[in-house]
């Protein structure tokens, strides 16, 4: 029940973020969506994700405000509105159709298939010694995935530093 109220709140905030004219209000509405998502994670009993979501949302919000507050991006409103609307509707229909077939195969909400997770939950504390089972999974059982994630972040930071460097920029 709380989850549905939160979902409605998030959808409302997202619509506000798209429709409002002022850029600062739009950024703050995006932040409201992130806060709702963090509360949803907290209700679903995932405090690790809630902390990460809240913190990253704040950081992204500050970066967005810092980077966009003086500039206003022009929106193209006139012109090929019929083609744009038709293609948008077509792609939404395609997405919904594929999602219907794909989501039918998933297990029901709250009834997971505990084939791999059972091993982790039973042997996590004994095998790794970490009482936080999320840490024991992402850094021990699935450490290889976390290494890949760290590499992605490292490459992204290197890319940003290389594109926006001061030396060698063409005027």
């Amino acid at each position, binding site marked *: 029940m709380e989850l549905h109220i939160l979902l409605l709140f998030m959808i409302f905030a997202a619509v506000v973020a798209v429709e409002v004219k002022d850029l600062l209000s739009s950024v703050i509405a995006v932040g409201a969506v992130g806060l709702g998502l963090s509360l949803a994670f907290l209700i679903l009993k995932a405090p690790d994700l809630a902390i990460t979501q809240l913190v990253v949302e704040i950081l992204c919000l500050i970066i967005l405000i*810092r980077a966009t507050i003086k500039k206003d991006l022009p929106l193209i409103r006139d012109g090929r509105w019929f083609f744009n609307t038709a293609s948008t509707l077509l792609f939404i229909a395609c997405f919904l159709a594929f999602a219907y077939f794909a989501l039918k195969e998933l297990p029901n909400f709250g009834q997971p298939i505990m084939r791999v997770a059972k091993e982790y939950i039973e042997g996590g504390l004994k095998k790794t010694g970490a009482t936080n089972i*999320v840490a024991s999974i992402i*850094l*021990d059982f699935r450490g290889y995935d976390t290494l890949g994630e760290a590499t992605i972040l490292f490459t992204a930071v290197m890319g*940003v530093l290389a594109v926006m*460097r001061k030396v060698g920029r063409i005027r």
Partner: protein
Amino acid sequence: MKNKEPGMTLIVKTITRLTVGLILLYGIYIVLHGHLSPGGGFAGGVIIALSFIHLMLAFGKDLALRKLGQLAASILESLGALMFLSIALLGFTGGYFFFNFFLQKGRPFELFSAGIIPLCNIAICLEVGAGLFAIFTVLILFKKSENKE
């Protein structure tokens, strides 16, 4: 009212002086207790980066860059990534990649337990915090130089 100093007003500076140490301390707590309670390297690293960004927003870019320069940030970030990779490679001493090579030390619910997991948390914290701070400083410096031209 125009103030000559960089940064925001006196109220913001005073509050920042009081809170920024607490924010940094909370980030370090989240990182070090990542294997005992919710949190972990990623969230703690972002909180540490946020404390430096807080300093930069309140006091201007010069003071924050004096605390942690751009070169130091990129060195710390590379150091974190290398540390994570070398911990993973040190697992080969016990047999395979990401082997938890000193597991028997420490009991559960203690700070020094769980083998390599706290070390991995510290490495990820260094990488994430320094990397995000480097992105933020680069964005600010880029904007400054763009305005000047």
